């Protein structure tokens, strides 16, 4: 059951420092939304507020509203830990747990959340998740080998398998291909195409071609100036952004005049 996200007037702080200002947007369910923009514009920071990973950093907090299917994410009664089970995340650098095998890595989210699984259910879940991440055929004969032994691209797909094993509704990806070679990147992009059948996907990327290839909608973030907070400049269907953007700054960024 994929879900949509509504953000209104979101300000993001690190302590007293206002990092991102006044973001409002709607992210559609079962589609891919890409965030683009120059480094330091706050696109990753914003992404991390969507599953409350942001507040892991001491002093970080937000003002404003994030609604997921009509429910406020930042309501005082909402447990951030539960939020993160519902909204999964894949990081810039592949980060499988070094003490665990491939099998254990896939099950980590479930096992660490105290869910008891029969051996058979566990096997099924591992196979299903690895299939879902397009990794099953490559690793099915060495499930008990350490996850760190895989190549970078395989590790990243393992991390995606690990994220979808807890059956989230939304998947956030923070530059998932920036540490990978072109072949692995293409494998991940194919995977994103498949995953959007089931999940709402938000992807941050520094690669505009990638945004154009994988996303339905694109949001362009930029800094208001040096030392000023980042803000959302424009959000539109990807086709429109890359052909006739509303804003001049978007046009300038996409045509490579800055950033």
């Amino acid at each position, binding site marked *: 059951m994929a879900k949509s996200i509504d953000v209104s007037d979101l300000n993001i702080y690190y302590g007293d420092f206002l990092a991102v200002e006044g973001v409002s947007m709607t992210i559609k369910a079962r589609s891919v939304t890409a965030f683009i923009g120059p480094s330091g514009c706050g696109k990753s920071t914003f992404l991390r507020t969507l*599953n409350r*990973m942001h507040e*892991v950093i*001491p002093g970080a907090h937000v003002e404003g509203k994030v609604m997921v299917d009509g429910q406020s994410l930042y309501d005082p009664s909402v447990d951030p*830990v*539960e*939020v*993160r*089970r*519902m909204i*999964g*995340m894949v*990081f810039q*650098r592949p*980060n*499988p*747990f*070094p*003490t665990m095998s491939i099998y254990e890595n896939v099950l*980590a*989210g479930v096992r*660490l*959340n105290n869910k008891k699984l029969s051996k058979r259910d566990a096997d099924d879940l591992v196979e299903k998740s690895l299939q879902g991440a397009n990794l099953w055929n490559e690793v099915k004969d*060495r499930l008990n*080998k*350490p996850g*760190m*032994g895989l190549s970078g691209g395989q590790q990243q797909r393992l*991390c995606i398998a*690990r*994220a979808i094993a*807890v059956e989230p509704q939304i998947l956030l990806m923070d530059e998932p291909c920036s540490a990978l070679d072109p072949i692995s990147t293409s494998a991940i992009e194919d995977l994103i195409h498949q995953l959007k059948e089931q999940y709402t996907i938000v992807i941050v990327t520094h690669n505009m071609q990638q945004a154009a290839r994988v996303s339905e909608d694109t949001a362009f973030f930029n800094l208001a100036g040096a030392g000023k907070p980042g803000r959302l400049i424009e959000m539109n269907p990807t086709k429109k952004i890359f052909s006739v953007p509303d804003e001049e700054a978007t046009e300038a960024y996409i045509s490579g005049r800055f950033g």
Partner: protein
Amino acid sequence: MTSLQTAPDTIAQARVRRLPRFAPAIAGAVALAAGTLLGISLGWNVAGIVVVAVLLYLVGLNIWSRLVENARAATDRMMTSLIWVALGLAFIPLVSLLYKVITKGAPQLNGRFLTWTMRNVIGEPGGIYHAIIGTLLITLAATVISVPVGLLSAIYLVEYGGESRMARWIRFLVDVMTGIPSIVAGLFAYALFAIVVGPGTQFGIGGGVALSLLMIPIVVRSTEEMLKLVPNDLREASYALGVPKWKTIVRVVLPTAMAGIITGVTLAIARVIGETAPLLIICGNTDSSNFNLFGGQMASLPVFIYSSYTQPGRNPEILQNMAWGGALVLIIIVMALNLIARIAGRIFAPKTGH
């Protein structure tokens, strides 16, 4: 301050006269020969000959370099030699100590030495079984106290405390604590149990408390370093799966750092297992085996070594030799712990290969 010379104008000028590469070897050989000759003719022992040879070498090479090269090069050679001499001087005691302990201690090691106690042993060699038992029990008690406290404190410092005022004070005072004299730790345990249990209390667990005061700071510092080495990526990956912070620490962070933590704890054990002063005060000494940490005086290997050497009784030769034997056993235990620490570090390290 040495004035650097004016810069040469051509490479030809930059080619200064240098001593041959094997000049130090020549100087060394000559100095050694001269020293030996002088020493033999004056009837000195080996130590005297070596000292004179080193002095001759230092002076001779300096003069030679000063004549052929220049004053700066001579100073440079002099300081290089002095640094190697310092290194040699630092190593002599270790070599001498190990040689002495092995040659004096090895003849003592036999089945009887390791399995007998000193109970009712008079005028003949006994054994150190009771002392080994005591040392193991007391050290075990210290470890049982220190590891949870040290581990949890380190977790507090890395995962919760951050740069808070309390965390900074703990970090600073833990550093200061590493410098507490061991005898003070013994007096602390003595004073504590004199008040809590009764005046003059001496028992094994008191030694455990005293040693843990010395051990905790070591465990905290090494564990803290290891936890800091765990990449933040892994914590974030775990949080993003909806795992609570405490479970992330217990199930992801600690296992990742486990190799280093085990190494650190083993080294901490090695550090305190040879402590004598606190046990002398709070554990006392006895000739029999005592398996009860909570009642009665308890012997330990270091205290056995000390008291056998200083109070050898009517037949001093026997007990003093046993002290050397005990010292060899103690050193073997300490070295074994150091070795285990390194091996454990390898075994428990996260596996990355296929």
